């Protein structure tokens, strides 16, 4: 099962070009943490250390191509613009995963499957229309999912011996008219 809106899955057109460079830069970055709490064990993640730093080497490499990708998405959805608030990577070795969560301080969040070897798990989510059906995104390596912040989702434990690497970012959109102005009664 897959909800077709307002969830967007699109291929990142520069994936093949950037994949190995991005993995090299991510794997050579010295700042990251292992994140462990109930239901979650993320092997390497630079959210705690660098999420607001847009000058990391791997971020500078991918920033403009990602903006180009998102420009198309925003245009299709009739948003005037968007701002990426935070960007980070997550790596999962065998048995690691990320428990059910949402992203409360943004409008949309994104997952780019940078390295998704065969057998590594895809992101799951709970259908918010019935609050119980567990669904799986129909994605493959190189895809970018963009979905609303309130979608409850998780990365199931990685049962593979291979490492899964994703890049994620949060963004806020600008609606056609500014929200926050006074209403006319």
């Amino acid at each position, binding site marked *: 099962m897959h909800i077709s*809106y*307002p969830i967007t899955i699109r291929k990142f057109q520069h994936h093949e070009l950037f994949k190995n460079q991005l993995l090299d830069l991510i794997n050579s970055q010295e700042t990251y943490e292992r994140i462990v709490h109930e239901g979650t064990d993320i092997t390497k993640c630079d959210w705690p250390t660098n999420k607001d730093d847009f000058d990391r080497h791997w971020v500078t490499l991918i920033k403009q191509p990602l903006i180009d990708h998102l420009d198309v998405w925003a245009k299709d*959805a*009739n*948003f005037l613009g968007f701002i990426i608030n935070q960007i980070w990577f997550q790596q999962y070795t065998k048995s690691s995963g990320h428990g059910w969560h*949402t992203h*409360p*301080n*943004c*409008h949309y969040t994104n997952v780019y499957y940078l390295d998704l070897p065969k057998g590594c798990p895809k992101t799951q989510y*709970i259908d*918010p*229309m019935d*609050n119980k059906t567990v669904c799986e995104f129909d994605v493959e390596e190189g895809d970018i999912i963009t979905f*609303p*912040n*309130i979608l*409850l989702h998780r990365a199931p434990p990685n049962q593979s011996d291979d490492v899964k690497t994703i890049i994620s970012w949060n963004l806020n959109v600008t*609606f*056609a*008219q*500014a*929200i*926050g*102005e*006074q*209403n006319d*009664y």
Partner: protein
Amino acid sequence: MDYEFYDWNNLIKEDSRLRLQADVARLISEGNYFTNSPKFQTNVNVFGLQTADWNNLKMSFIWSCFAFLNREVQIKNIQSWSYQTSLKHAEDRDILWHHHDHDPNTKTVSGVYYLHLPSDVEDTEKAGTELAPNGVEGEGKYYVPWQTGYWMIYPGKIWHRPGVLQSHDDRYIVAADLEF
């Protein structure tokens, strides 16, 4: 059915609803309400408040509207407000009928989020919203029951009015329009 319910209790829980309610109470206590409409309707577009709770509520409204329409639409505008009221400020209900379809250039989907109902309200069937799908003078008016934590989504062109007040404690709803 003219309306649909969307249950967001799994993601917007009681602690969040209490914070939303407190924000509305603060806005009204600071005088941020319309003086030419029944007491007390905020004159602030509450979805613009910069907290995670309001952001989540806004996104849940947008998603509910897409689900109601069975498609994702290009949003032209979103407006939102909150309404705090009780028997202390009861008005003649016959003057409360209205609709939200004011712009001929857009279509409007509207929503009511049932934020807080006082515990002494006994008839929840009449505490939500009354719809008049065939107009105020037409047949077939009915009540949408109160469902805390749900968005009730309906076409903005439908005439409606708040449910029957039954308590001297405050009832809170959030209302919103999505124009496309």
